[in-house]
């Protein structure tokens, strides 16, 4: 349950700079934070679902040496899947999360074309914090 003084639901803000953009995330819990990061990415990439395209469901497992790098791995996995499978994932269920491992299900639809390029999530200016008021993170994408 969300701490009363923290965010009651996950949210994000995108700050654009010249060649990259920062996603600032807040959520009541860390799993919700990772799910929101996935939604922020898909909101950025966008794309029109192909008519009649069935809903795609994909199990994703990533690992990293720490929680911050895990967020980058998660987003880069979604970038890779979107580009190679032409699927824009819009809904996420984090099923298992530790500081070094994440398992999740991503749901989306095939798209003819993704609108906005995202080359990768970077380690630059990266932060993930968890406290009594919930979880917060900043991650910078190269676009």
């Amino acid at each position, binding site marked *: 349950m969300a701490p009363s003084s923290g965010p009651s639901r996950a949210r994000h803000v995108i700050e654009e700079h010249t060649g990259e953009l920062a996603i600032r995330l807040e959520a009541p819990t860390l799993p919700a934070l990772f799910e929101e990061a996935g939604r922020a990415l898909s909101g950025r990439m966008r794309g029109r679902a192909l008519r009649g395209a069935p809903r795609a469901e994909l199990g994703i497992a990533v690992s990293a040496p720490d929680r911050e790098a895990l967020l980058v791995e998660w987003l880069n996995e979604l970038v*890779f899947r979107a580009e190679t499978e032409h699927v824009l994932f819009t809904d996420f269920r984090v099923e298992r999360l530790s500081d070094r491992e994440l398992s999740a299900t991503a749901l989306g639809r095939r798209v003819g074309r993704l609108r906005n390029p995202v080359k990768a999530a970077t380690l630059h200016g990266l932060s993930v914090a968890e406290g009594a008021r919930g979880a917060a993170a900043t991650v910078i994408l190269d676009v």
Partner: protein
Amino acid sequence: MELVLRSVGPFLHEVERGPGMRVPARVFADDALLEHIRGDLSLRQLVNVTTLPGITGAALGMPDMHQGYGFPVGGVAGTLLPDGVVSPGGIGFDINCGVRLLVSRMSRDDLGPALEPLVHEISRSIPAGYGRSGRLSLTRQEMDRVLEEGCPYLLREHGLGHPEDLEYIESGGALPGADAGQVSERAKQRGEDQLGTLGGGNHFVEVQVVEAVHDEEAARRLGLFPGQVAVLIHTGSRGLGHQVCTDQVRTMDHAARKYGIQLPDRQLACAPLSSPEGRSYFAAMCAAANFGWCNRQVIAQRVREAFRRMLPGRPGTELRLVYDVAHNTAKIERHGNRDLCVHRKGATRAFGPSAADIPKAYRGLGQPVLIPGSMGTASWVLLGTDEAEALSLASTCHGAGRAMSRGAAKRMVAGHVLRKELLARGIVVRCPSNLELAEEAPAAYKDVDRVVDVVHGARLARKVARLVPIGVVKG
């Protein structure tokens, strides 16, 4: 803490030395460009670059420098071999993003009303946009040969291009250290159907006209004349390069800890080039660079075919390659009596007339440097100078450099209005979306002429010709 700059030469400024800086940080700019540069975090990022183990000389910022991640875009750094580091963040995700200039022997008048159908045919021939697949799908074996052998393989085995093209591509379109075995299956998967595709963002193919010649003798030797129809291709190694960088930053993040390297920014993750991790990255980066050159080679072939199809029987339509330059690479180069790993992120190699590694026809002249403007603005052909070796490790700018984000550009410029404005100026535009057009509006970039004035004034390169677009195909 605010960084203090002092002038140390023509258009050259140095950041006051602070703790942790192994070498100075220097930036080439005039007052107006310096104000742009001070408006973001690029100077701080340049200072961070000075902390890299093995860095020698200075961390250098080009006049089009802007904020990136790890290195600034427009950053140059040489590390001393064998044990200086190589950092994927010093090259960036779009490995061997670069520019290729082809010229016809036609003038704009010769082209006449054929321009619009020609631009349309080019846009039909080259898949554009993010993740778009091309017509040239590679088997895994063919992919590995592209990665290791570069453009010579495409020419020899697939007949893509003219044999003389190779002489006019930086490094002959093939870096010798490439090893396909160091490129992940994921990277190959991401790139397997992207050869010959433009990609999104600021990548483009433009039909241009030589508007003005600033050095007649140099222009003559490069085969340029006023009014000449030319084609400029700006793209890179696509998803393959992005994935190589993603994979290798992960490895380098671990390696930096392993080798006890303290970094002010985790995206500067690096390892000595002599280490297994350093060698692996370098071999993968070289392979991705070869893919980038091959991508531009295939696109050039499609453009040549479009010219032949749309202008049958007309004289002067065959396109000759003037040069192809990379602007996101690390290369092993000898400067003075030292071997360096020269990182150029958003910066172009600019070898002078004395350099051996330039086309025979350009010896004594200098390496052509191609500076693409933003969509709808001028592009430049420059020549490298011998002075640039001491000043900037034989490097110069790579473009106008973004001045505002894509979102800010879209808020400021309406795509449909921009499309009309370009059309009114006689520029044929093929771009699937007005929003994407607005993102690359000229107002989103610094003034390319000013940037070129600085590199000319600082003697990093010298002006030869200015080109303007008459047709734009955008990703």
